[in-house]
C-alpha cells in the first residue's frame, strides 16, 4: 500500500442519544478508488461529512494528504472536492455559470475558470444544456454538474456520496469513466454507494460500515473473500430472513 491520502482515526458523532458514527478508523492509499458501503442509516453520509469538514465530529482526526481537516480546515478544503448525495447546487444559475462560480470560488483566474468550465461541460456531455438553469436539470445532469463543481479546482482527493443514485446508465458511464481517469492520474476517490456491482467493478479498496462502525476494510478481494461483494456484504451486515411469506394472495396464480 502506498502513502495514505486519507487517514481517519477514532471518528465519532452522536445526535442526542443516537450514536451515528461510533469511532471509525480508515486508511486509503493515494491513487485509490475506494468504496464505503453500508445499509441505509449506517453512518456513511455522516462519516463523509466529517471527513470533508462539513460536520464537526465529537472526537477523532481526519488527515487528507497529511493536512488535518479540523485543525486547518481552509488548507484541507483546498485540496478536496465533494459531491453530496443530493446534488446541492444553486438552482437559479445556469450549468455554465455554476461551474464557473465554483472555479472562481476556488480562486481560479477568470480565464482559467471559463476554460475549465467549457472542458468539463464537454466531457460531462452538458454543453448543449450549459445555458439552462440548474433548476431544470434532470437528476443525472445535476449529478454531472455537481461532479464538475467538485473537480474544477483539480483536487487531490474526491469524496462522493451515492454518486450514481438515480443516474441513467449512459450518464453513469460518463461519470465512471471520468472518475477512473481521475484516479489514474494519481488522485484519490472515496465514494459511498449501495450498488455493489459498481463498487466491485471500479474499487480497489472497500470498507463496509454498519451501525456507525467499520465491520470490514481492505482490498476489494480481501473483503469479498472469494464470494461476490453482494454476498459478502449481506453476510457482514445481516439480512432479514422472511421474504413476504404473509402475502399469499400476491402473484398471478392467486385471485
Amino acid at each position, binding site marked *: 500500500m502506498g502513502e495514505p491520502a486519507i487517514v481517519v482515526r477514532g471518528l465519532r458523532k452522536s445526535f442526542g442519544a443516537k450514536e451515528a458514527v461510533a469511532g471509525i478508523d480508515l486508511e486509503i492509499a493515494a491513487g485509490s478508488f475506494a468504496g464505503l458501503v453500508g445499509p441505509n442509516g449506517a453512518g456513511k453520509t455522516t462519516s463523509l461529512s466529517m471527513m*470533508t*469538514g*462539513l*460536520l*464537526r465530529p465529537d472526537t477523532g482526526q481526519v488527515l487528507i494528504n497529511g493536512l488535518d481537516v479540523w485543525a486547518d*480546515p*481552509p*488548507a484541507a*478544503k*483546498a485540496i*478536496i*472536492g*465533494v459531491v*453530496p448525495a*443530493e446534488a*446541492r*447546487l*444553486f*438552482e*437559479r*444559475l*445556469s450549468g*455554465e*455559470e455554476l461551474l*464557473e*462560480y*465554483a472555479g*472562481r*470560488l*476556488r*480562486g481560479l483566474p*477568470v480565464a482559467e475558470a*471559463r476554460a475549465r468550465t467549457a472542458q468539463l461541460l464537454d466531457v460531462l456531455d452538458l454543453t448543449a444544456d450549459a*445555458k*439552462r*438553469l440548474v*433548476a*431544470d436539470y434532470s437528476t443525472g445532469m445535476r449529478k454531472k454538474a455537481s461532479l464538475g*463543481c467538485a473537480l474544477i479546482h483539480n483536487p487531490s482527493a474526491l469524496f462522493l456520496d451515492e454518486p450514481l443514485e438515480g443516474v441513467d446508465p449512459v450518464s453513469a458511464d460518463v461519470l465512471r469513466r471520468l472518475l477512473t481517469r481521475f484516479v489514474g492520474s494519481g488522485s484519490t476517490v472515496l465514494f459511498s454507494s449501495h450498488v455493489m456491482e459498481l463498487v466491485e467493478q471500479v474499487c480497489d479498496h472497500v470498507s463496509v460500515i454498519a451501525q456507525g462502525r467499520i465491520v470490514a476494510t481492505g482490498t476489494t478481494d480481501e473483503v469479498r473473500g472469494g464470494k461476490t461483494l453482494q454476498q459478502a456484504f449481506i453476510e457482514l451486515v445481516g439480512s432479514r430472513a422472511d421474504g413476504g411469506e404473509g402475502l399469499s394472495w400476491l402473484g398471478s396464480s392467486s385471485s
Partner: protein
Amino acid sequence: MARLLVQLKLRLLRNALRSSAQAKAGFIVSMIFAGLVAAGTFAGLAALRGQGASVDLTTVTFTLFAFGWLILPLVTFGLDGTLDPATLALYPLRTRPLAVGLLAASATGAWPLANLIGLLGVTVGLARGGPGLVIALLAVSLEVLFCITLARFVTAGLAGLLRSRRGKDLAAFLILPLFALYEVFTQVVPKLTAEGKLTPASFAGVDVWMRWIPPGLAAHAIQDASTGHPGTALLRLALLAAVIVGLGWLWIRSLSRGLVTVDTSTQSSAVRGAALPFGRYGLRGTVAARFWLYQRRDPGSLIYWGITAVVMVATSVSSITTPHYLFALLGSAALGTGLMAALHANAVGLSGPGFGLEAMALAGRRALRAYFSGQDIALGMIAVPLLAVISFGLAAVARHPADGFLGLAVDLAGIGAGLALSNVFTVTVPYPMEKRVGSPTPRAASGYTGYGLGGTLGSLLGTVLAVVPVVLGAVLTRSDPAAVRMPVLVLCAAGYGLVLAWIGVRIAARAAEQRLPELYQIAVRSKL
C-alpha cells in the same frame, strides 16, 4: 366516485390536523377565519337592506368571491391533494365520474361552507318577498357552484404548468398584487372611510358592466325577482347555469387532456449571456455576481423587493399629502431599509443546500469578508436605486421634490445599517428555511419560528434605530439652506452607512470563520 373523493378530502383534512400541533393550530385558526368570513359577509350583505346601491354592492361582493376562487388555487395549489388530477391519473377512472367527484370534493370543507353561509346574507339584504327569497337561494347556490367550477377549470388547465418550475415562479408573483390589495384594504380603505370619501354610495353604478358577468347575473336575478320580474330573474339564472355547464364541459375536456399531458414550457428556458458578470473583481465580485443573478432570477428575492416597495408606499400614502409629509417620507425610508434587512437576515438559510459549494471553498476570514461584502454589493445595487426612486416619488407626491434628498439620506444610512445587521444575524441566528406547498416565499422551518422572529425583528428594529441620527439631522436642520444641508446630509449618511456595512462585514466574517460547519448544517436543512 363522488363519495370516495369526498371521503378522501375529509381524511386529508383529518390527517393534516393530526400531523403536528402547529398544523392543528393552523386548522383551528383557519376555521375561526372561515367562521368570521361567513358571519362578516352575511352581516355585510344583510346590512345592505334599504341601501340605494345594494345591488351594486352585492354584485361587487359576488365578483370578489369569484375572483378569490380564481386566484386561490394558483396561490395555494397543493394544499388540497384532491386538486391535482395527476395524483388520480394512475387509477382506471372515467373522466365524467372523476369530474363529478372532484367537484364534490371541492365543495367539501369549511371554506366552501363559509362562502355559502356568507353569501346567503342576500336573503336579508337584497331579496324581497317569496319569489325573491327562492331566487336568492338558487342564485347563491349557482354562484358557489360557479366559483367552484371556475377554480377547477383554472386548476385543471394550469395543473401541468403549476407542477413545473416556471409555472410555480409565475404563480409566486401573484402574491404581490394580493399583498398590495391587502395593504389597500388595511391602510387606504380605513382612511378614506374615516374621511367620508368612501361610502356605500361610492359603489352606485359600478355594475354597469359587472351585471353581465356571471356573479352579476346572480345578484341581478335576486334584484329582478324582488322587484316583480321573476321571468327576467329566471332568464338570468338560466344564463348563469349555461355558463356553469359550459365551464364544466371545458373543464372536463381540459381534465382528460391534462391527465396525459406534461408541461414542457420549462424545457426551452435558457439564460442569456455567456458567463458570470464582475469577473475582474476577484472573490468579492464572484460572490456579488452569484447574489446579483439570484436577486434577478429567484422569484422569492423579487417578491421581497416588491413587498419592500409596497410597504414603503402603503405606509406613507395616508399622510404624504398632509403637512406631516416629512415624517411619512422619512418613516417610509426607515421602514423600507428595516424591511430589507429583515428579509435578508438569514442569507445562509435562504441560500439553502447550495451553500455547501461555498462552505467548501471559503477558506479563512479574508475570503469570508469578500463573501459578505460581495453579497452587500449585490443587494446594494438593487436597494439604493429602488429605495431612492420611491423616496423621490413620495417627495414629488408631497409637492416637495427636493425633500427626496432627505429620504435618500435615510435610505443610504439604513441600507448600510441593514446590510450590517442582516450579515451579523445571518451568522449568529441562522435557521433553516422551508418553502411550504402553496407558499411562494420561504419561512422558518418548523421549530425555528423563534429564531426567525428574533432575526427578523432584531434586524428590523436595529436598522430603524440606526437611522435615528439621520432622521434627527434631517428634521433639526430644516431651517438651514437646502443647498447646504441636502448634500451634507446625503454625504454624511452615505459615509455612515458605508462604515456600518463595513463593520457588519468584519463582525460577520469573524463569527462565520468559527462556525462554517454549523452554518452549512443549517443551510443543508433548508428546503427551498
